[in-house]
């Protein structure tokens, strides 16, 4: 069962096509990393899923139905452009937004207090939002996006502006929601978080879905084509015609194999050279490499 299904979704603003025939499925219970350079169309895609924007063509289904006001209460949304009424008190604003999602005042209040407690904000609950630090405001906004226990959560750059401790807390909560069966869409630029948190990814570039699928499968499809070599002595063997791009690291190098080159050939050449090899490993490409590879293709 897929929690979110986009079919051929297109959206244009005047002359610019922000999202171009994007199709995408998000498996229920999975964490999907929505990746793409700035201006790729991620926010427009998310806004269309939230029914804030209406696609020019194509269809969007969330939890099996076209998004309506009642469906929207089943989605938690943390927008990239963050901000809440600055002069409202923290508790009031959480209760107000929770009530808009259909909770009763009493229930909203109870859950808000529990969340403020968990995120270490309980002593701030009667302060105005404007008196809180940026990081604290962001935690408040995170609470408002998950307080109604939505089965689907869309988080646009949830970690930006958070210190490592708070980022870890949010990450922990995300994994907890995942284990409870929530489907999470995580839009971010930070590849290491995607590698750590996501089951699947969707890479959007210039309004198009250029790559999507389970993270494991994508990495495998790219094949193991990167050599991590640590050595002392001369590096003449790196001039082998089968080696493409080389990245020098403190401890050694990362070398890309040209298509058709076997790693064994390089190893043979290295052993025969005057270099003393201490480590020789064939790796999958990192997500960053895949990202750069896909988004810089002409």
């Amino acid at each position: 069962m897929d929690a979110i299904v986009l079919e051929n979704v297109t959206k244009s603003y005047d002359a610019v096509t922000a999202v171009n025939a994007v199709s995408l499925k998000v498996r229920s219970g999975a964490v999907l990393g929505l990746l793409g350079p700035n201006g790729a169309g991620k926010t427009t895609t998310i806004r269309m899923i939230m029914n804030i924007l209406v696609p020019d063509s194509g269809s969007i289904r969330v939890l099996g139905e076209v998004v309506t006001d009642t469906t929207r209460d089943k989605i938690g949304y943390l927008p990239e452009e963050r901000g809440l009424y600055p002069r409202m008190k923290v508790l009031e604003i959480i209760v107000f937004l929770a009530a808009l999602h259909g909770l009763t005042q009493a229930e909203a209040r109870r859950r808000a207090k529990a969340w403020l407690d968990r995120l270490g904000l309980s002593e701030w609950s009667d302060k105005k939002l404007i008196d809180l630090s940026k990081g604290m405001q962001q935690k408040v906004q995170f609470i408002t996006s998950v307080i109604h226990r939505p089965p689907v959560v869309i988080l646009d750059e949830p970690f930006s502006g958070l210190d490592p401790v708070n980022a870890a807390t949010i990450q922990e909560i995300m994994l907890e929601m995942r284990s409870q069966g929530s489907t999470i869409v995580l839009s971010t630029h930070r590849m290491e978080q995607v590698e750590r948190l996501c089951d699947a990814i969707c890479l959007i570039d210039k309004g198009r879905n250029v790559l999507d699928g389970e993270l494991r499968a994508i990495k495998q499809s790219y094949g193991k084509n990167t050599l991590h070599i640590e050595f002392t002595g001369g590096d003449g063997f790196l001039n082998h015609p089968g080696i493409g791009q080389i990245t020098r690291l403190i401890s050694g190098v990362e070398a890309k194999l040209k298509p058709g080159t076997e790693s064994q050939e390089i190893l043979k050449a290295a052993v025969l050279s005057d270099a003393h090899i201490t480590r020789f490993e064939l790796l999958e490409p990192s997500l960053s490499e895949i990202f750069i590879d896909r988004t810089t293709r002409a």
Partner: protein
Amino acid sequence: MRKILLIIKREYLTRVRTKGFIIGTIIVPLIGLGSVLLIVFLVGHTATQSLRIVIVDNSGQLAPAIVHGLDGKLADGQPQFTVEQIVSRPASLDDLQQDLRTRINGEKLDAYLLIPPDLDQPFELHMRNPDNFGLVGPLSGAVDQAVISSRLDRRGVHFNDIQTVLKSAELKLLKVSEAGESVEKGQGIAVAIALVVLLYTALLMYGIITMRSVIEEKTTRTMEVLISSVRPFELLAGKILGVAAVAFTQFAIWMTSTALLFSFGVLASLGMTRNSPLAGVHVPISLVLYACVFFVGGYFMYASMFAAIGSACSNEQDAQQLQWLAMAPLVFCMIIYGVILNDPTSRTAVILSEIPFFAPVLMSLRISLQTPPAWQIALSLTLLVLTTVAVMYASAKIYRVGVLMYGKRPSLVELVRWLRYT
């Protein structure tokens, strides 16, 4: 509907709790009332003592008539003037004047009046402060009357007879309307002008409050969260109704406190008694109802225009340039209303009051001056309602696009293009 109620509640509570609301609703009127009370107090208490005067009568005959004319009383029942001395034809005028000046400078005397030997010569009033109107006014009146009376006496005519002869004829003004006739004392115009100013101010003020509120949600980026759970139309409707509730509260507080002030007699003591011009003001209940209906229609129309403008702008500076779109028709009403005041049945007046953007102010004005034919009111109201619905529909569309637009202020052409977005 539940969501609209939540929006209204939030809008209302956050607005009513602000310092601005408390200051605007309670403190500013209190300061206004306080300064009126202060002025009344000061004016009423400047002359608490009888003014001491001396009359130097070189004609030797006029002083008693003048004294007779100085019969004013102070608030506490004391006479306004105490004539300490009447000197008839003094032997040495210079010595006497020297003495009187010393007494005035020593504050033992307030003024002395010098009556010339020939009554056609100028009289002289010597005093420390010639600007003291409370002293000069009644004295000048008493002198006038005494002199005229003496001239008439010489011709053998009695002053009282002349007064009867010269008494103005009374012209009673009666206003004819379908409801019958009523006595008009000129307060009709005052009510009409007050109505125009009130409607103009309220439409403008609460419209701009709505606009600011939309801009605030945009600049603080609260908008994105809101429209992810509320439809833009619900947000717009909730906001307009929320501000309307604030307006209603403000008016209710003002009306109640005015009524309370009346019943405690505070205003009565300010001179608003039966004889004051305000006491005769009669505001027919039908006028109040009509004005309310036209105001409600106008409020929804203008507030949604202001809200749409707010939604199109990213900050207050941009909005200040675009808000003229909504303000212009209101300002036009203020410029043109004099024309309608002069002739509420003229063709210009009829046409202008049928145009929906002017109707809330100008039709209310016409109704207050001279009830127009029912079909004109009905037509104006119908047009107003239809236009209000159309404006709200268009505003909701602009609002829907505008709330997510940041950056450059859109041009008019772009606003029109937004109307066509689905």
